[in-house]
């Protein structure tokens, strides 16, 4: 049995579901927002093992039969109306520790990815250390709440970008706002008010011929170059998708090896690496040198299939169908 944790409106997850069904694999899809109102957990611990089921109106998962779990993007528990704030906090905590705890306890399950390991892996400063140990090149980076340190760092490199350490999407003024990578200007550096408010993340600007998203699915790696078609997308391709073009490429073996080592150290099975393929610097160095920007354990991939034709869905389907080898 394969358990897919994904929200309802997720057509990337649909693709994997259809692939699994086509192969005849038993699969149940659950969004954790269904718990506790549309999803029932019935689990007993006896004789050293958890037995029981997860049940929806139309489907049932035998806990003992689960061999793979794909944690795509489940949304948070939706509790019954009428709870006080204290009751809701209590209920949410109990739901997480109960449902999450039972799932974590199941033996021999292939997690793609294990949520606790994925959560740990989102710490970018940790990623940089792991990537460097794995032989990948990481641009000089500053994390600080000191305006003085920002000035010092900016003066030490040819150019500097600012980008968030965590999610780049916030809700404010009744709308969503996205924070893309920003190429810092002299005017920005002249007014550093607000740096002290929290940690800020700056990195040396890496001139590039292209960006690359490399998606690791178990033993498979799919590498797609992303070519900017505008000034905006040259700094951050996500800021102007429509101008970008895509092509599947091969990366040097040492980069592939570095990514595999990175994944192994962090215990990840799936990861979407954002890399830069360097442009030549003034001294002639850096051309085609691949630099590590980040690895996203929940990174999107369908746009790479749509634009470059890489078979990530098939790879995920195969991986989940095989399950854990342990």
């Amino acid at each position, binding site marked *: 049995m394969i358990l897919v944790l994904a929200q309802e*409106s*997720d057509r990337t997850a649909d693709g994997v579901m259809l692939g699994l069904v086509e192969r005849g694999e038993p*699969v149940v899809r659950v969004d954790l927002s269904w718990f506790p109102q549309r999803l029932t957990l019935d689990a007993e611990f006896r004789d050293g093992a958890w037995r029981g089921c997860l049940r929806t109106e139309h489907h049932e998962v035998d806990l003992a039969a689960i061999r793979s779990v794909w944690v795509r993007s489940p949304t948070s528990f939706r509790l019954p109306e009428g709870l006080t704030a204290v009751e809701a906090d209590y209920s949410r905590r109990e739901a*997480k520790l109960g449902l999450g705890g039972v799932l974590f306890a199941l033996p021999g399950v292939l997690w793609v990815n294990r949520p606790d390991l994925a959560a740990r892996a989102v710490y970018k400063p940790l990623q940089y250390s792991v990537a460097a140990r794995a032989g990948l090149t990481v641009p000089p980076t500053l994390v600080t709440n000191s305006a003085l340190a920002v000035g010092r760092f900016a003066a030490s490199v040819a150019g500097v970008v600012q980008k968030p350490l965590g999610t780049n999407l916030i809700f404010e*003024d009744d709308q*969503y*706002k996205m924070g893309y990578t920003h190429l810092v200007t002299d005017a920005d550096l002249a007014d550093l008010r607000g740096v002290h408010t929290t940690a*800020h993340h700056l990195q040396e600007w890496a001139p590039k011929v292209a960006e690359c998203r490399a998606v690791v699915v178990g033993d498979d790696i799919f590498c797609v170059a992303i070519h900017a078609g505008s000034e905006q997308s040259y700094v951050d391709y996500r800021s102007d998708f429509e101008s970008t073009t895509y092509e599947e490429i091969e990366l040097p073996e040492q980069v592939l090896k570095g990514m595999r080592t990175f994944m192994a150290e962090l215990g990840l099975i799936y990861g979407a690496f954002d890399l830069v393929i360097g442009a030549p610097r003034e001294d002639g160095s850096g051309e085609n040198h691949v630099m590590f920007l980040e690895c996203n354990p929940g990174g999107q991939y369908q746009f790479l299939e749509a634009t470059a034709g890489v078979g990530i869905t098939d790879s995920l389907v195969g991986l989940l169908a095989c399950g854990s080898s342990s």
Partner: protein
Amino acid sequence: MAGVRFVDDPLASVSEQFPLGAPGFAAPERSDAASAPGIRPWGLRWLTGMGMPAAPTCYRYCPIRQVSVDVVTGQPVAPVAKVAWTTVSQKDGDEGPSKDYDWEVQPDYTG
């Protein structure tokens, strides 16, 4: 008391042990205006407004087939070749350029 110790732990919360996102088309209950310069984090100066996502109207989730299906035919909808969201240069009215969420409606999960 298991778990209580970690609920508000700034470095390793229970949340992070089993991270969960907000529903894709839901707006958070609360929306504040930006704070004044000087207190607002420097890193939030360069945000781009994305508007509000709209729930799809041509397909819906089928709890039996466990995938999105066409609202008319009931058949699973085929994947489409779109990127994270589609720019609509101008809508009717005076709201100006906007972005409509489609296809991969969620940005990368980064915690």
